[in-house]
């Protein structure tokens, strides 16, 4: 294990007041409201913040908007895992004395598009070598590796459909989840779904049907981090960073070295395990970024929870509960609790979902999750890709 273990803690974590369709809020207002809620969660003032990390915005934009002048900034913006990477960078910055209180913010008007930047340059590599082939955002590009995985390992759409059903079962226990039974009526697609419902849903981009895809939402979230020495001075129990990793593997999905393995996942995961002095067997709870059903399957394999190629049968395993209900491997009551907020698939996905994965890890470790609380969570992993398996960030968090 290396020197970062247990040196810095997350003492505040929160989303915006609401998630979903928020046309009355701009990108920067979502950053600011997330910041307020995370600072309130920590019981700390904006005036105490001297480090600012954000994605989807230049740190100066957010600093000016909030009216602060931080002495440490990081604008790493490499997609959905940017916030895992921010946490890793905040650990280093706090240990180096570059800042004392680090605020990480996310805000994205992913559905309503209020000040949402779109599209890249037609002269960029993506503009020249991918966009002309009628690429239409993540459903047509995050899907690219999947059929190669099917071909090499016999993974099937039925396997993937179990991940969607399991994740929806968690959403039904989370009052904030967009597709959960608390917020969305069955006639509008909310509430329980079966693997067969996933296969019967509208085809978006083969091999992904509608229910293989995440929701599209407006929202934000934020985190507050301080050194371990100060961590007990705040409102809630601290959540310590035990290990962290990051990587940049490629940018365009066509240039992914091996479409059946996310190199970035392996590099980031190995660094996280090494710094924590832990392995997959020590993790009680996983938040694996799920832009699509296939995304967390790749994480389970490349982070060592299941051998390469065996993720499909692993997630498709079910058993029958005491009342005759189906218990999914990664669902409530299953022995691999994953994406317990309802995931990007059924809770919320703004475009850069990683922030929400970290927030759920923090809440599970604090024991704040009510009906969806997993028993005995002491070590949680929050992991995600940025772009189409292009970058990666991994965190191992613990409550002691």
């Amino acid at each position: 294990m290396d020197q970062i273990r247990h040196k810095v803690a997350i003492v505040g974590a929160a989303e915006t007041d609401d998630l979903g369709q928020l046309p009355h809020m701009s990108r920067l207002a979502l950053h600011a409201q997330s910041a307020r809620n995370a600072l309130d969660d920590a019981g700390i003032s904006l005036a105490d913040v001297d480090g600012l990390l954000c994605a989807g915005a230049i740190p100066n934009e957010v600093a000016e908007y909030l009216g602060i002048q931080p002495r440490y900034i990081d604008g790493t913006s490499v997609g959905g895992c940017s916030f895992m990477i921010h946490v890793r960078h905040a650990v280093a910055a706090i240990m180096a004395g570059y800042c004392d209180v680090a605020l990480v913010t996310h805000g994205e008007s992913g559905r309503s598009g209020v000040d949402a930047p779109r599209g890249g340059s037609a002269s960029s590599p993506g503009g020249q070598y991918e966009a002309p082939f009628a690429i239409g955002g993540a459903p047509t590009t995050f899907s690219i590796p999947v059929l190669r995985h099917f071909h090499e390992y016999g993974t099937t759409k039925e396997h993937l459909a179990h991940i969607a059903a399991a994740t929806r079962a968690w959403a039904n226990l989370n009052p904030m989840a967009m597709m959960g039974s608390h917020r969305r009526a069955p006639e509008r697609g909310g509430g329980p779904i079966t693997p067969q419902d996933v296969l019967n849903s509208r085809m978006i981009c083969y091999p992904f049907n509608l229910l293989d895809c995440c929701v599209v939402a407006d929202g934000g979230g934020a985190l507050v981090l301080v050194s371990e020495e100060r961590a007990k001075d705040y409102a809630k129990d601290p959540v310590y960073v035990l290990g962290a990793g990051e990587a940049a593997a490629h940018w365009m999905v066509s240039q992914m070295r091996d479409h059946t393995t996310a190199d970035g996942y392996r590099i980031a995961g190995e660094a996280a395990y090494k710094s924590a002095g832990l392995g997959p067997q020590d993790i009680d709870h996983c938040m694996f970024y799920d832009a699509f059903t296939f995304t967390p399957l790749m994480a389970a394999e490349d982070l060592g929870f299941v051998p390469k190629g065996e993720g499909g049968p692993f997630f498709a395993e079910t058993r029958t509960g005491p009342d005759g209900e189906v218990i999914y491997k990664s669902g409530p009551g299953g022995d691999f609790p994953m994406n317990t907020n309802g995931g990007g698939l059924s809770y919320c996905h703004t475009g850069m979902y990683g922030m929400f994965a970290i927030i759920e890890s923090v809440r599970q470790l604090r024991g704040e999750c009510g009906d969806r609380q997993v028993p005995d969570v002491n070590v949680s992993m929050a992991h995600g890709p940025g772009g189409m398996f292009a970058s990666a960030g991994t965190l191992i968090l613990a409550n002691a």
Partner: protein
Amino acid sequence: MADYAGRLPVATPESQPYWDGLKEHKLMLPTCDDCGPHFYPRPFCPMPDCFNWDIKWTQASGKGKVHTFVISHQPIPPYNSEDNAPPYVIAVIELEEGPRMMSNLIIDDPYQTTVDMDVEIVFDDVTDEVTLPKFKPV
């Protein structure tokens, strides 16, 4: 052709020979004497232990295989009109020479596409200025 609806690439000085080659219906690849051709065009060899800046352009055979693919059902230009409607295939082609590139597969029934299917290049002159490299089953 003037009203082509799809997105068009804009060359940089480094990629201009690639797009000029396509206009002449040639698939030109930047090539390192030691490591062979690469994709996409860069003015050096992108092998970290080589990083040689002496690059020549060589013509590829235009033959390859479908490495992986998807079938998009989204009406994304130019696949957004009655006579050019989805579904359509977006594929990563592994060229005979080794490099992989994204493209479209021109095939009557997209669901007949298979991984490792043999394909060959089709030069699609989408405008007077731009030719896109697409592929069809052999």
